[in-house]
């Protein structure tokens, strides 16, 4: 971390410090200056949003900025006054001085302290991860709402109007401003409009021109030299910064917040809710901005540390005449884009801001309030993210609800509640999204792996594999039965549930399995489950569900069994074949004399595929796992695939036995005890299966004729033949018994004639 880099540089001696000096200091200083040039007018204007003296905005841009930069996690986050936060401060505090008789500034400092304390607590309780759950739509909606409020509130400053009555909410702001329109001061409007035009158009000419700074300098100079700020102007006198509270060229910031010790109970209680809203809003802003920058810079963020940084920034700020701040999007972006390397850039910006106060206080005092309002109108316009609003409006219902719900509540509710509405909405959204379980059908790709397809697009098959994905809450489990049943077609015999990617409490998952198993059984269908996690396995053991479904139909998801899906498929196809045998369906299908037996009539899908790079040990283990669930005596091969998923070779059971027997000395084989035999076979375990497998495989397609397959089997001495589809991808196998059955059907066998008399 660069700060630690700096700290360790200081510790480890001058050479390291010199490294920083050479490498990053210059970049940080320049970046800090850029931030300050943009930030000074912004900070003063934002203070105006909160109804506070502009100089307080500068203080916040210094103290809060430095503390948060030093303690926080992000390298580029610039903390300070922000538009949305200031709007909340105004909404929270504007009416309180009348009510309690304390000064507005003291109330704001108490609020700042409380906000910081709550944020610190969030960080200390390590709630940093929680921020992830607040939807970005909340931020967009809230910012847009705050932008509209700011614009509405600044119209009066732009027009130089003083309202007789303090508006309580958005609509009063509009109506009071409207009533006072006749008193508009056109000098103020001219200055504000000129500043706004500078802010808009100067950066278009050259993006390095700080539009806001030039704007207030030009409009300030204009007002000053024309004498518009002088009392002689009467009603047309424009208000300047000095009239609100003069900025003095000193940095005597320390001011003990009088209301902290002890805090007045009633006031603190009333501020508490607002402070919580401010704290949350501040953290959301800071975290999302820090995250946005980190995604470009590649820094790994520790959100808990960021929370502590924000909290400490505000707590310390409350002792230095600062109001609550947060991460500023514009200044952070400028800091990163102008080449800021470490958090020293933010500290430098504070330094340059301080320098501005000391050097230019006399000038800053003459900045017209209307000019700051002009800046704010432009800021307010940019706060409404039109593109994002349109996209969200067209997107899913849920994020539309969150975004516009938040936006509307900023306009009709006290602003602090709008924050809670947004957070609440995004939690509801989160629960709805994650509460959904995604069901797709897995269709085996003949090369390797599976395609996930929606139920209605999956081809009908005897074996249906359903992939369950997502989170499963109990409520969602209710509907799941019906959804699951949709996978069943008339052809279906076995349903495989893959639960590996399902996040659910064991008891919920168990309830589903139990019910689904019952439903399937009532329809004469079989259930096979794979990807069962340990937690579920334990609960199932206790409940007897393992016996109900049948141990041979369950495949567990311990990491040994990454092939649990393959094994489940082999099991499912063996169930299908067992049933088919019972029904003797084959006989019916080929009984018509015309029927010519094709490979497709006899081929078995109960195949096991395996990579050709594995060792004998793994093949032994896989086959023995399969034998535990597939009840058959016939020796079944493994079909090996290469890295591209193409059929590479066939490893027969005898090939495996040959390998295992390779180190058995024929002389002593008759007296070899099991233990020694085990040792002997294990010494073969590392042999590559590719070395043993047969590579000279014929290419037999599903529509090949039976006798072709028979001939190939005999001439190649290959007992079990791989069967491919038209594109040459493995789909199944023709076993000796399968071929014999085909032959029986072709030769018109029937049990009565063929069976010998006892």
């Amino acid at each position: 971390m660069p700060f630690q880099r700096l700290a360790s540089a200081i510790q480890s001696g001058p050479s390291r410090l010199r490294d920083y000096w050479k490498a990053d200091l210059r970049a940080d200083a320049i970046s800090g200056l850029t931030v300050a040039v943009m930030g000074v007018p912004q900070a003063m204007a934002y203070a105006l949003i909160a109804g506070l003296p502009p100089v307080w905005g500068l203080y916040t841009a210094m103290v809060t900025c430095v503390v948060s930069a030093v303690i926080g996690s992000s390298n580029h986050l610039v903390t300070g006054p922000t538009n949305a936060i200031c709007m909340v401060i105004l909404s929270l505090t504007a009416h309180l001085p009348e009510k309690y008789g304390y000064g507005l500034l003291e109330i704001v400092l108490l609020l700042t302290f409380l906000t910081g304390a709550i944020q610190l607590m969030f960080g200390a309780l390590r709630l940093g991860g929680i921020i992830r759950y607040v939807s970005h739509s909340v931020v967009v909606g809230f910012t847009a709402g705050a932008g509209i409020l700011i614009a509405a509130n600044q119209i009066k400053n732009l027009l130089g109007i003083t309202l007789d009555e303090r508006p309580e909410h958005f609509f009063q702001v509009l109506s009071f401003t409207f009533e006072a329109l006749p008193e508009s001061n056109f000098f103020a409007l001219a200055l504000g409009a000129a500043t706004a035009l500078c802010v808009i158009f100067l950066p278009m000419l050259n993006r390095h021109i700080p539009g806001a700074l030039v704007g207030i300098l030009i409009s300030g100079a204009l007002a000053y030299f024309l004498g518009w700020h002088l009392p002689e102007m009467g009603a047309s006198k424009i208000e300047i910064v000095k009239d609100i509270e003069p900025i003095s060229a000193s940095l005597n910031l320390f001011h003990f917040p009088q209301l902290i010790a002890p805090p007045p109970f009633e006031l603190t209680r009333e501020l508490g809710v607002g402070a919580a809203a401010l704290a949350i809003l501040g953290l959301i802003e800071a975290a999302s901005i820090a995250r946005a920058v980190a995604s470009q810079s590649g820094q790994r963020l520790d959100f808990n540390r960021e929370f502590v940084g924000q909290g400490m920034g505000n707590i310390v700020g409350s002792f230095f005449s600062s109001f609550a701040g947060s991460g500023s999007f514009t200044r952070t972006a400028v800091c990163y884009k102008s080449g800021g390397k470490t958090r020293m850039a933010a500290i430098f910006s504070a330094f340059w801001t301080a320098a501005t106060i000391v050097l230019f206080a006399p000038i800053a005092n003459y900045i017209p309030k209307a000019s700051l309002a002009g800046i704010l109108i432009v800021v307010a316009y940019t706060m409404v993210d039109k593109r994002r609003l349109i996209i969200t409006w067209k997107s899913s219902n849920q994020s539309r609800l969150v975004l516009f719900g938040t936006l509307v509540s900023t306009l009709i509710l006290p602003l602090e509640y709008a924050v809670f509405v947004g957070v609440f909405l995004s939690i509801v959204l989160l629960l709805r999204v994650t509460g959904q379980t995604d069901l797709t059908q897995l269709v085996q790709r003949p090369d390797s792996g599976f395609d996930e397809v929606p139920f209605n697009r999956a081809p009908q098959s005897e074996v249906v594999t359903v992939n369950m994905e997502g989170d499963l809450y109990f409520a969602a489990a209710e509907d799941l039965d019906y959804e699951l049943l949709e996978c069943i077609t008339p052809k279906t015999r076995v349903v495989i549930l893959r639960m590996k990617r399902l996040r659910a409490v064991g008891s919920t998952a168990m309830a589903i399995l139990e019910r689904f198993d019952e439903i399937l059984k009532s329809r004469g269908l079989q259930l096979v489950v794979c990807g069962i996690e340990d937690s579920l396995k334990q609960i199932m053991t206790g409940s007897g569900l393992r016996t109900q479904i049948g141990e041979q139909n369950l495949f567990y998801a311990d990491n040994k069994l990454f092939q649990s899906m393959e094994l489940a498929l082999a099991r499912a196809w063996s169930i299908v074949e067992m049933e088919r045998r019972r029904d003797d369906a084959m006989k019916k299908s080929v009984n018509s004399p015309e029927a010519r037996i094709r490979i497709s009539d006899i081929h078995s899908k109960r195949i096991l595929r395996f990579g050709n790079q594995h060792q004998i040990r793994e093949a032994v283990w896989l086959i023995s796992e399969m034998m535990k669930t597939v009840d058959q005596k016939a020796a079944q091969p493994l079909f090996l695939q290469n890295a591209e998923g193409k059929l590479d070779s066939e490893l027969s059971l005898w090939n495996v036995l040959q390998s295992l027997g390779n180190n058995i000395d024929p002389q002593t084989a008759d007296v070899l005890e099991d233990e020694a035999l085990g040792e002997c076979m294990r010494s073969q375990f590392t042999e590559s299966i590719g070395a043993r497998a047969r590579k000279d495989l014929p290419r037999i397609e599903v529509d090949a004729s039976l006798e072709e397959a028979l001939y190939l089997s005999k001439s190649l001495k290959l007992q079990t033949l791989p069967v491919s589809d038209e594109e040459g991808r493995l789909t199944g196998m023709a076993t000796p018994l399968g071929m014999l059955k085909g032959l029986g059907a072709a030769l018109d066998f029937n049990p009565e004639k063929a069976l010998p008399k006892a």
Partner: protein
Amino acid sequence: MSMTRASDLMTKRFLRISTEHTIREAMGIILYGEQTKHDTGAIAIINQEGDFAGVVTPNQIVWGLVGDWKPVEGNSGESEFLPFAESRLSLSVSTLLTPEPTTASPQTSLARLVLMAGASESECIPVIDEGRVEGLVYATDIFKAAADIALTPGTEGIAL
């Protein structure tokens, strides 16, 4: 110290028919007999004296019926193959038997069975005691027993 032997692994439930039976009958038993439930089809064959003569598996019947038949170029040839196969159905099962089949005794060790199965590539090895067939040891059973012994907790699973 223990040693797994053929007698531990062999299946005693199996069919035996005599060399007098035809291939057609052997095939009928394999296709419709009880043992199809387990996907096995091996039957032991005994000669007129009641002594062991050999084992017939589905594979042996298939290969036996194919015999030295060859598809004719440019002709899928089912019409030619089926009469050919049909004609062979009435031959005695003894024509399918391997002249000197691999056999085990009840005392045969698992190690020996592993070697036998690997070498014979046969679905099962008959267990003979004093000329009589006592049972059949399937290659799958040999494998299962071998895997049980060879696989230790540390060697299970598949390396990713």
